[in-house]
């Protein structure tokens, strides 16, 4: 008996001993030490434990801010603004900060892929596919769809198209669609005879009337415009400037306005003309033709703005030495968007601020640019899609844009893409386009890539922003420019002639070298190689001169501008305003930290919401987090409600940025995409009338708590108990 005990006892002890050993050696050499691999050869400008900084261009949106990226032993650690870059002067927005989460995103495309094949392709085969696609199809059967940024790849493909008769590349982006860039430039063309992107010097102004322009969020060049806003407010020598925002739903920009005027959607043109008329009366002299036709009382009653308010604003506008009016955002995305833009630009003509500090001008063209290339309008995209649907394209290359997500469903890109024999995506991420494509030949992430980019607006000078890799490519990706050059060489003939370069860098050097010896440059160099080196080092090249053009004011006021109200499509009782999420924008949803940034106005994170006036919600018996069904004539969506105190009772609004069905673990299946509600309605300039819809709201009885940073109790007093 006792022997048995002892044996069992010993076994137990031995077990205990083994456990002790395991625990103790858990802190042993194996776990305490890590392996460290030295460089086999120390790269240039690298020293152990020290950071290296590279200047490049931010590719998160098309604005083209200059970045300086801190790298440490071959890893990118932090992005900062390039303090010398004329566009952003060392500042960045949240998206620029989070671009590293794109670079090191866990859901990137790691290798070239052929749809349906489990194994990755090799790059030689991939280039062969591209070469075959170029060579084996008629030139007009090959199309290239690109992102909004007018960059080196656009030039390269344009060159290729010019030489071979291929379709000229078409650029599109949801941001451009929601900014209504085509409307802006066409209005400028109509009024001043030359299409161009207007530049508004907010910083120098005294009174700024913004008709829906969300210039502090995503509009055109938010970092630059935010700097302008600082100038408006933090007046060093002059008075603190005033911002008046006309919009039906308070945007983050509206939240900063001194006066927020919630006008009835669709009456922006009317209101702008009425203010023009009142201001012209105050200024005296002949009534300009542009404003003559408007009935101020009618405008006040239709827009829901008190006459006194209009008079007071007109007074401010007329009496200010630095009056400025900005058209933008949802105001332009209506059936009468072009009129709105013209009416508002006419206000600037009345203020006679063209080309003056605090006034309006036409943006400087980039150094090597002869005319303004605007991205395609929705109407042009519709034509493009019709061609696709009609089988006109055998090959469609897609780069820098995610049309399956960014284009409204109703335009039919999805079904039209079925009629394209070969859809080739160059997407860096596993987005919707990459999922639908026949081939994905992943481009480098922007921080791994060479390039340059024209700054379309926001800087005073003409700027060509330079990009260079800050880290070596993390995955088996290849620059699309390199792929195209190699494929063109392989295809031979006119293709090879069009792109006679060894690689992307040589192409860049050739292009950039054309600036060598130009006057007023930010730097000069004795030879192309040095020039290229400086170009990368400084993060671009710009002229040390004000490149903005003052339009002629003469014609602007003498055109009659119709002041019709916008027409709205759909049966519903609510105006519908989709707006671009200031933190996510069109491509931020896959970056976890951008998802976790609270929206500036609602503080919601990780989701989409429908903004609704408290009164309306009360009438409909809807509470926060109640899921409602929003029905338009183009589709329906279900999403939770955010009871938002600063929106008209007859209006609902919703951010664009979520609702991905692919695009990685952080984006997929999260929220909804307001594009699904948008129908084929355009304004006269061909931009989508995205705010020209009416929707119905139906209750579903479901609840989906929104994740918000703010406290509903503390901010809205909800849940604290009855009145206190």
């Amino acid at each position, binding site marked *: 008996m006792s022997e048995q005990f002892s044996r069992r006892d010993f076994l137990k002890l031995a077990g205990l001993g083994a456990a002790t050993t395991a625990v103790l050696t858990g802190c042993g050499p194996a776990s305490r030490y890590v392996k460290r691999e030295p460089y086999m050869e120390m790269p240039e400008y690298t020293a152990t434990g020290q950071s290296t900084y590279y200047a490049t261009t931010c590719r998160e949106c098309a604005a083209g801010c200059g970045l300086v990226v801190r790298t440490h032993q071959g890893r990118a650690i932090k992005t900062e*603004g390039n303090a010398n870059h004329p566009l952003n002067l060392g500042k960045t927005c949240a998206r620029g900060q989070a671009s590293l989460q794109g670079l090191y995103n*866990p859901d990137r495309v790691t290798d070239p892929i052929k749809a349906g094949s489990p194994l990755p392709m090799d790059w030689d085969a991939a280039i062969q596919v591209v070469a075959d696609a170029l060579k084996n199809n008629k030139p007009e059967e090959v199309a290239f769809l690109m992102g909004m940024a007018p960059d080196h790849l656009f030039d390269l493909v344009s060159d290729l198209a010019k030489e071979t008769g291929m379709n000229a590349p078409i650029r599109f982006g949801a941001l451009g669609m929601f900014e209504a860039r085509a409307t802006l430039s066409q209005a400028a063309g109509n009024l001043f005879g030359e299409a161009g992107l207007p530049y508004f010097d907010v910083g120098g102004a005294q009174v700024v009337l913004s008709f829906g322009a969300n210039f502090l969020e995503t509009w055109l060049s938010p970092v630059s415009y935010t700097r302008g806003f600082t100038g408006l407010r933090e007046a060093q020598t002059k008075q603190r400037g005033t911002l008046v925002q006309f919009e039906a739903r308070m945007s983050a920009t509206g939240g900063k306005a001194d006066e927020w005027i919630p006008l009835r959607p669709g009456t922006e043109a009317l209101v702008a003309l009425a203010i023009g008329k009142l201001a012209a009366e105050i200024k005296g002299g002949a009534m300009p033709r542009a404003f003559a036709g408007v009935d101020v009382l009618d405008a006040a009653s239709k827009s829901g703005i008190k006459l006194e308010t209009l008079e007071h604003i007109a007074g401010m506008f007329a009496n200010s030495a630095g009056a400025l009016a900005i058209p933008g955002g949802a105001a332009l995305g209506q059936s009468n968007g072009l009129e709105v833009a013209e009416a508002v630009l006419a206000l600037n003509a009345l203020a006679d601020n063209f080309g003056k500090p605090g006034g309006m001008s036409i943006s400087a063209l980039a150094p090597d640019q002869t005319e303004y290339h605007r991205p395609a309008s929705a109407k042009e995209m519709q034509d493009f899609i019709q061609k696709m649907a009609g089988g006109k394209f055998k090959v469609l290359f897609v780069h820098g844009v995610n049309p399956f997500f960014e284009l409204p469903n109703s335009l039919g890109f999805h079904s039209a893409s079925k009629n394209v024999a070969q859809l080739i995506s160059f997407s860096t991420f596993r987005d919707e386009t990459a999922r639908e494509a026949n081939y994905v030949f992943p481009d480098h992430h922007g921080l791994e890539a060479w390039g340059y980019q024209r700054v379309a607006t926001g800087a005073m000078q003409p700027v060509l922003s330079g990009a260079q890799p800050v880290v070596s490519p993390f995955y088996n990706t290849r620059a699309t420019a390199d792929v195209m050059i190699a494929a063109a060489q392989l295809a031979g003939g006119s293709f090879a002639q069009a792109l006679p370069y060894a690689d992307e860098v040589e192409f860049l050097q050739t292009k950039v070298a054309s600036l060598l010896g130009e006057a007023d440059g930010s730097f000069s160099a004795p030879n192309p190689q040095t020039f290229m080196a400086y170009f990368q080092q400084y993060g671009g090249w710009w002229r040390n001169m004000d490149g903005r053009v003052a339009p002629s004011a003469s014609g602007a006021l003498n055109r009659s501008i119709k002041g019709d109200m916008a027409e709205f499509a759909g049966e519903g009782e609510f105006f519908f305003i989709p707006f671009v999420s200031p933190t996510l924008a069109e491509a931020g949803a896959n970056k976890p930290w951008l998802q976790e940034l609270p929206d500036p106005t609602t503080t919601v994170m990780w989701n989409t919401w429908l903004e609704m006036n408290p009164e309306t919600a009360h009438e409909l018996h809807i509470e926060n987090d109640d899921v409602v069904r929003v029905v338009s004539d183009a589709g329906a969506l279900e999403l939770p409600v955010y009871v938002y105190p600063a929106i008209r009772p007859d209006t609902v609004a919703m951010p664009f940025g979520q609702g991905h069905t692919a695009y990685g673990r952080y984006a997929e299946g999260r929220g909804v995409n307001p594009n699904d509600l948008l129908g084929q309605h355009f304004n006269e300039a061909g931009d989508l009338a995205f705010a020209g819809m009416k929707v119905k709201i139906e209750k579903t009885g479901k609840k989906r708590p929104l994740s918000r940073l703010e406290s509903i109790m503390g901010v809205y007093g909800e849940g604290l108990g009855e009145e206190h």
Partner: protein
Amino acid sequence: MMATLSDLKISEVKLSGKEAGKWGMVIDQDICTGCQACVAACAMENNISFVGEEDAGYGRSMHWIRIERFWEGEYPEVKMTPNQPMMCQQCGQAPCEPVCPAFATVHSMAEELNLQVYNRCVGTRYCANNCPYQVRSFNWRDYERPEPLPNQLNPDVTVRRRGIMEKCTFCIQRIHRAQDQAKAEGREVVDGEFTTACAQACPASAITFGRTDDPASLVSQLMKRRSHGVKHLEELGTLPNVTYFKGG
């Protein structure tokens, strides 16, 4: 020979909180647009974890800086109050410090900041309760950063794990880097030579950071030029080092 605690003779005068402080921040709420660039910059610089939808909505987000906004009035006279970035106010007499039983939340005599010594933290969360500004965030879990996201981690900042309190440090790693660089070059740190991640990113330049004990520095100039600066909850005697300018 091991030194003992009594060897550390730090004079009593130095121990008491000074009014002026050393590092300070000035925030102009009138021009803060609430764009969240500072929040993103802070997260990128300081290796802050993201926590996901559920935890973020349950008051567990790890933001070291948050932008508060309230509403005044009702539609149509509704106004959004000026955006108010809240981060650790680096109090001269911080309520968080005396309550930590482990000296994990401790005052830096050298930099006159509130330090959070991550590895000393045992997670009682008393400091966070006692912080009147509610700017401390606790690592409720080991929040996941799937590969290759960890590649962007800043080597100058400790990566925190579960059970540890953390908060804004005024980018002390940048302070040290600048001091080290200046020392190596045999000079003093120059005002504006470096700044915090939030101030560096801020597109509106609403955040300014620098030495408040140097009358020539930009922050001191701003505080002097605009006398209506507010220090939050100053009445509690916390001697905060962040000054806010509310309106025009």
